[in-house]
């Protein structure tokens, strides 16, 4: 019998879709699609409320589905999606962060009669059309479906079990974010510039990712992560394809987590994007991208540990140092937080580089801790305002502690958590990743990490000093009293920060249980 005949006889399975296992993602995508329909059919006045209920309800339902799936350890959709501990843990985290983000996005009491988004995004900044739109007090609600699409992509990203799904998830996640970045109500030129930069560089990095995927396929003949892992075990004399492919896929993912030298977009984009979107990106994108990075290295490349570890150690070290050092001279609070997020990407890489089970679980824990602190910090930024919108220049924050001790106290708590001071979630997280790294034989990383924490503590504490020990400026910004949405978001951030600092054991245990990847 010839080969061709054999192929023809082989039975082809009908693809199966395990709807129950995929429920969290399906719900969120469903809500996103429904959101588009809401835009089309629901009267303008009712859209905001409908979107809000739909989005929050959908995310809550998806979270319930995640909880129901807990303990699941299998692959779904013909091996394209892994429903395992890390997937579910990260999806749960992403959904909670998504709920908080949507609450911030839906805040409408801070601007005079508006939200943080442009009334008519298509109108050129400064044009007549823009003035008309502002005068008409227009509100756009496309941000909700866009956010839900992005969130859907994020849910799929860390769960993708083959490289093509991963790429699709990456794009589904990124495209709405590019748009969202350009929607700021104030300083629209800056916002649009940020969106364009993010899009161009994102496309550039996607190209690297795709190029890498192609090479890995060329080497292993498969896109499935487990099959690639098997292929790397085989003795091949020439594995340049494998090495280059691995490096390029890593570059694509490192871009999304904002590791040096692929971080240059972060400060510009974080500064230009509407602050609720910045918070969403900083927290949720990082969680999703680290999930994907973990899965790629832990599932597809465990056999290549000795090849990727040295390079990634270098990346982590450079990331921590550059993030911490450059943050020192930042004068804009959003840029400072951007560089701080770069430094934190380095700390999280430290946990991942432990390349053991503790590495996975400590990274998962760190992502939860970091996500809530970040969202909380950006939520605080939205409240400190003057005539020009948010007062993001740090000099304007001088003496804030005298005027609004509560808000300044909350921000100080978030900064201390970023700095990793005990009794905050940041300390527990840092302790966990450093311990995992030390156990995993990455002692040098721990030393650099601790030193960088010390440098980073300087600029965090400097802001606290500025807030509490400087004279308030006469023309200083005012602190706007937000609606219950932002208040709840900040309160949740504070609660998670404190609870994970004082009583971290339950979540640590959960992360521990969830650290097994399905192969």
């Amino acid at each position: 019998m010839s080969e061709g005949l054999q192929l023809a006889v082989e039975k082809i399975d009908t693809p199966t879709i395990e709807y129950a296992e995929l429920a969290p993602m399906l719900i969120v995508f469903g809500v996103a699609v429904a959101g588009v329909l809401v835009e089309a059919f629901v009267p303008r006045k009712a859209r905001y409320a409908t979107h809000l209920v739909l989005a929050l309800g959908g995310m809550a339902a998806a979270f319930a589905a995640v909880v129901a799936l807990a303990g699941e350890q299998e692959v779904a959709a013909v091996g394209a999606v892994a429903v395992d501990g890390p997937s579910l843990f990260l999806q749960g985290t992403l959904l909670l962060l998504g709920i908080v983000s949507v609450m911030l996005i839906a805040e409408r009491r801070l601007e005079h009669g508006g939200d943080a988004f442009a009334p008519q995004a298509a109108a050129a900044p400064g044009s007549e059309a823009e003035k008309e739109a502002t005068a008409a007090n227009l509100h756009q609600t496309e941000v909700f479906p866009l956010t839900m699409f992005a969130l859907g992509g994020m849910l799929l990203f860390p769960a993708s079990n083959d490289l093509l799904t991963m790429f699709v998830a990456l794009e589904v996640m990124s495209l709405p974010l590019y748009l969202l970045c350009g929607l700021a109500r104030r300083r629209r030129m800056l916002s649009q510039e940020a969106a364009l930069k993010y899009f161009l560089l994102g496309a550039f990095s996607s190209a690297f990712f795709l190029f890498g995927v192609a090479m890995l396929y060329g080497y292993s003949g498969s896109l499935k992560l487990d099959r690639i892992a098997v292929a790397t075990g085989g003795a091949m004399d020439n594995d340049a394809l494998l090495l280059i492919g691995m490096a390029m896929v890593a570059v694509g993912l490192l871009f999304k987590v904002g590791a040096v030298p692929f971080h240059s977009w972060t400060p510009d984009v974080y500064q230009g994007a509407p602050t609720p979107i910045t918070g969403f990106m900083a927290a949720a994108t990082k969680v999703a991208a680290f999930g994907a990075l973990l899965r790629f290295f832990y599932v597809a490349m465990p056999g290549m540990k000795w090849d990727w570890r040295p390079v990634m150690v270098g990346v982590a070290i450079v990331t921590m140092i550059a993030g911490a050092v450059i943050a020192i001279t930042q004068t804009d609070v959003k840029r400072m937080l951007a560089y701080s997020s770069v430094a934190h990407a380095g700390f999280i890489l430290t946990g991942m580089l432990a390349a053991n089970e503790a590495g996975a679980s400590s990274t998962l824990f760190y992502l939860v801790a970091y996500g809530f602190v970040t969202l909380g910090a950006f939520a605080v930024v939205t409240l400190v305002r003057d005539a020009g919108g948010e007062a993001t220049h740090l000099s304007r924050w001088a003496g804030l502690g005298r005027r609004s001790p509560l808000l300044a106290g909350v921000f100080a708590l978030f900064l201390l958590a970023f700095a990793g001071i005990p009794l905050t979630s940041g300390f527990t997280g840092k302790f966990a990743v450093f311990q995992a790294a030390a156990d995993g034989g990455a002692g040098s990383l721990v030393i650099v990490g601790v030193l960088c924490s010390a440098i980073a503590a300087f600029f965090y504490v400097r802001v606290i000093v500025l807030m509490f020990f400087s004279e308030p400026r006469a023309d200083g910004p005012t602190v706007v009293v937000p609606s219950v949405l932002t208040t709840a978001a900040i309160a949740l951030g504070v609660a998670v920060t404190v609870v994970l600092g004082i009583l971290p054991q339950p979540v640590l245990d959960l992360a521990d249980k969830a650290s097994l990847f399905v192969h």
Partner: protein
Amino acid sequence: MTQTSVSSVYLASTEGGAGMHSVAASGVFSATWLVIGLPLLGAAVLLLGGRRTNRFGHWLGTLFALGSFAVAAALFAAMLGESGADRSIDQHLWNWVAVGDFQAEIGLHLDQLSMVFVLLITGVGSLIHIYSIGYMEHDENRRRFFAYLNLFLASMLLLVLANNYLLLYVGWEGVGLASYLLIGFWQHKPSAATAAKKAFIMNRVGDFGLAVAIFLMFTAFGTFSFDEVLGGSAAASDGTMTAIGLMLLLAACGKSAQFPLQAWLGDAMEGPTPVSALIHAATMVTAGVYLITRSAEIFNASPDAQLVVTIVGAITVLFGAIVGCAKDDIKKALAASTMSQIGYMILAAGLGPIGYAFAIMHLVTHGFFKAGLFLGAGSVMHGMNDEVDMRRYGGLRKYMPVTFVTFGLGYLAIIGFPLLSGFFSKDKIIEAAFAKGGTTGYVLGSVTLVAAALTAYYMTRVMLMTFFGRERWKEAPVGAPADWHEPHPHESPVSMTLPMIVLAFGSVFAGGLFVLNDAFVNWLTPVTGFSHGELPFSVWVVTGMATAMVALGVAVAYVQYARREVPAVAPQGSLVTVAARKDLYQDSINEGLVMRPGQYLTRLLVWLDGRGIDGFVGGLAAFIGGTSSRVRKVQTGFVRSYALSMFGGTAVVVAATLMARMA
């Protein structure tokens, strides 16, 4: 009896002691925690309740103290009903910290020794609460005062009831805190604030010793519990035991104002007089004696440490007595006397099993008569516009008869007038000192005899200057302020005289009751052990010598202060008198040896910190900041340069991955 028989015999018959056997608390004994809990609750209510409790705070505080005493009395009654072996009771409350090998338990240990202390603390404490109701009547912060007193009681009871050294340390620090708060209670007076700080800082030195001792115990035994530390001490190495013993002695010196950490006690008299009576005479300052007696097994295992204890005690006995002879401030004279009397106790405790029981016996009788004397002094001050200079007293017996009689009985007790409390307890210590044997025994015995004479001298002096002689307070003092008016001495209210009367009974009868059938010694023997020392001569010789020395001291004082006029202004005095007035230059010595070098050291460190460390840190910060500004310029804002940096980064990552394989 000959010298030779001494050394071989006196260590021979040690009964009881080492190896504690405890039963778990049940029945009445399960209420042991209440003894501490009640005053602690009182302190919490009064401190947290704030002004709302002002009206009844003093009654509440007194009630909690009395309640604690009632529980203590019930415990005592129950303990009398038990047989000797079952009188050692352990109450486990909860585990404080349990991490690996480190187990910290919150548990209480009630035995004959702690029972004595609990009764003394709650009994005298309750009396002083009652006394304070009258004494502090016009003080607007009376409620706070009672809160601190309750806090003190709780801490002191925790100290004596803890079943491990760590918990004892908590109580130890607690009494230090209460003492600090109460010495500085009138903190608007700079002298009181300074005295409080001085007491606190000098106590820190001692506390450091206790902390080190506890570290050493944990290192040597891996535990803090009395049972295991004391049970294991016989088997442990001599060096360790000596080190622990000396560190415990340092702690005792700090808390009990023993040489060389004695300087704070005189200044502590800045606190209200009830505080001086309770904390700085009857209870807290005796904590050092408790510590040494409780750690008997450690000291028994280290004769070197014991010798140092006796030396410290001997020096302090004389030191306090000499200073007491020259003080014109009635409270400072009594404070010097306290120091000297505690010196007796420390000396006795240093003698080992022949002395422990007598140290505690003297501690209890001293608690009665010294508290009584202080309360008497407070009563005198109360009637004399808070005057403390005895040269401005005189002839007060007519004006305050109750105070005169109770103070007089306390005076007779402390000098060791035959058949009063002090006579029995002090006599036993003198006997034990001689029974130590050898040259040491003779030296220590002589010291205690000389100190007995000095005690008689300075106490007679206090008595004569206060209650007898010309009424010097009627004349305006030299350089009196314009608004000076003649004091109108009067007897104190019944809330103040009643405690004095009760204490006077103790001063008179306690000693006699204790020695009847050796009751006190038998009571304590299961805990501290006891061995009969062999005296080089008859007991009656010692008693005779002691009584003769006392008579000598009284006679000299009589000649100086009753036969001659007491000048209203202190005369120049001899070199020794001047030295004694200045506390034998203790403050100058401390300043020269510790304070000034300390100040220089601080200055040097500040300088080093400023130039060296700050310079380095500042330089590093400037370097990082400079780097930051330079690197920041890479962030141009041009997307093309970002893309280039990404491309370059990718090239480096790919190249490095390939190189890693080759390497």
